[in-house]
């Protein structure tokens, strides 16, 4: 069902946050099961050089606690590889990406729907050896086809693989350059001189990845955590298998959870003044019997006014915090509730789309406008790095 909104007043919604406290237990004698609790407010920052010493004593206390406490989650004890879920982001600036990146290559990336996966760091991947990688991958695909394993025999004649570098997408000097892969082949019944068609394309990228993590990697590893693919699943599997064999990496599916979809919705709505988003469409799935899908389309001006009213609460211009994003979505949900008495927070957000792009919960993304590519890719790179097993 569709709902077109005209105008509505902004409604403040505050979320309840629990108190932040750190409890430390000192056990006198384990036999007595008596614990003295000491409260400490964790407001000061732990200095980086002392953190290691602190960790050792904490782990000792943790092990003492673990023998009497039944429930506690283990936390990553690695100082360098712990990643943080970001609570605020920079506001996206419209930048003319064609200044940095070749416009033909930009055209390859936009206006297509990509399926996302994450990939662990690649061992001894050299950007200089792309030609040999192309030959190796095409030989691998031919050999797999001859084994009769992967592809239906007889449809394609031969595969030609093309590895190329897309320069200019990397934001910091720690990001590796984007690698674009294309698989071309000739159809069996095509004309003799017809050019081979692209049957599959994919790209590996890292945009503004977490600097601590990238610095902590050993030198032989190249981190390109985001892998976008488009094409038949059989070819995707073949490419992944070859990568896993050659560079000792692991692939996995990357879904975009509801928080990140909300981030994308807010970031795209925030771009409305500079480029007309034309609509803001959100799709929820409600767990009713039978499951109900709700498509909620908002007029762009109303969406922008709501977003702008959330933004006025914040003083800094440049960064957007998660509270504004949740407030924005809550405003939309409460308006829907007032009209239909259906609380959308009982369901899960599946898809959002605007004229600037669309994104689905299962890991599909489509970027329609080249202006905001770096922001979107940065968000997706963060998702990939968080999802990746460290």
């Amino acid at each position: 069902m569709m709902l077109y909104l005209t105008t509505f007043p902004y409604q403040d919604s505050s979320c309840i946050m629990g108190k932040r406290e750190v409890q430390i237990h000192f056990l006198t004698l384990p036999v007595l099961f008596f614990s003295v609790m000491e409260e400490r407010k964790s407001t000061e920052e732990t200095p980086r050089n002392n953190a290691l010493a602190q960790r050792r004593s904490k782990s000792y206390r943790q092990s003492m606690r673990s023998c009497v406490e039944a429930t506690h989650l283990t936390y990553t004890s690695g100082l360098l590889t712990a990643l943080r879920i970001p609570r605020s982001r920079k506001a996206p600036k419209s930048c003319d990406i064609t200044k940095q990146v070749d416009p033909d290559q930009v055209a390859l990336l936009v206006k297509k729907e990509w399926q996302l996966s994450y990939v662990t760091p690649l061992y001894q991947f050299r950007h200089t050896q792309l030609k040999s990688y192309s030959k190796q991958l095409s030989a691998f695909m031919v050999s797999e086809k001859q084994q009769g394993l992967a592809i239906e025999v007889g449809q394609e004649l031969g595969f030609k693989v093309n590895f190329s570098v897309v320069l200019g997408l990397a934001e910091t000097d720690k990001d590796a350059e984007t690698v674009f892969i294309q698989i071309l082949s000739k159809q069996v019944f095509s004309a003799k001189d017809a050019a081979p068609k692209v049957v599959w394309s994919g790209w590996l990228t890292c945009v503004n990845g977490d600097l601590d993590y990238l610095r902590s990697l050993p030198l032989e590893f190249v981190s390109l955590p985001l892998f976008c693919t488009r094409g038949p699943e059989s070819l995707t599997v073949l490419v992944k298998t070859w990568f896993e064999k050659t560079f000792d990496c692991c692939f996995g599916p990357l879904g975009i959870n509801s928080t990140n979809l909300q981030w994308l919705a807010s970031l795209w709505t925030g771009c409305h003044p500079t480029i007309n988003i034309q609509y803001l469409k959100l799709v929820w799935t409600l767990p009713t019997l039978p499951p109900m899908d709700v498509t909620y389309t908002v007029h762009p001006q109303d969406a922008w006014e709501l977003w702008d009213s959330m933004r006025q609460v914040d003083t800094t211009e440049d960064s957007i915090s998660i509270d504004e994003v949740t407030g924005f979505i809550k405003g939309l949900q409460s308006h829907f509730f007032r009209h239909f008495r259906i609380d959308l927070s009982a369901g899960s957000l599946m898809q959002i789309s605007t004229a600037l792009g669309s994104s689905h919960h299962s890991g599909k993304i489509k970027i329609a406008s080249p202006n905001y590519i770096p922001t979107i890719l940065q968000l997706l790179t963060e998702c990939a790095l968080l999802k990746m097993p460290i």
Partner: protein
Amino acid sequence: MSLLKPFSKLPGLNTANILLVENEEQFQQKLADTVVLQEKTVNVNVRLARSLPLPMENEESRPRIDLVVFIIHLTSELSFQSAETSLKYLDPGYFQGKVCFLVTSARNVSVPPERLVSVRKLAASLHCPLLCAEDQTTEGVTTAAHRLLAILKVAAGLVPMATGLYLSTLTRCTVPSDIDQQNFE
């Protein structure tokens, strides 16, 4: 405000009463059946509610509630919010070992991790245990029922030398400061 009070009624002999509060009303039925089937020695009464406050009409006939369990499904935001608003209708006496949080689909990939973190923070601030349960398989339901029964028997005073407050200092949820996001900038 009609608060649910822990000690305003007399306990029954060899009886334990548990209240399962869940907004979606799907897991509590299965859990209730399993809890009643599992326990052979003690009379267990399971009462189900969607949210607090409980209706005034049953006030007289309702027995003393020994343990209140809030079931939160992490797949929906509404579940957590409804549990939070229900907390206001509990007398503070309940938070000394008579409240427990039960969370489902914590391992689910599509659940944003921030939700589990906020549930943990809530449970830690109230000094209550947080249990994770698997509600799709029968073994998961049985395990959850078993754990709830263990806590229930202590909260109802049926285990010698152990009280709810005493057990809660051992089983309460804690949030190590590393999970607190803003600390490590």
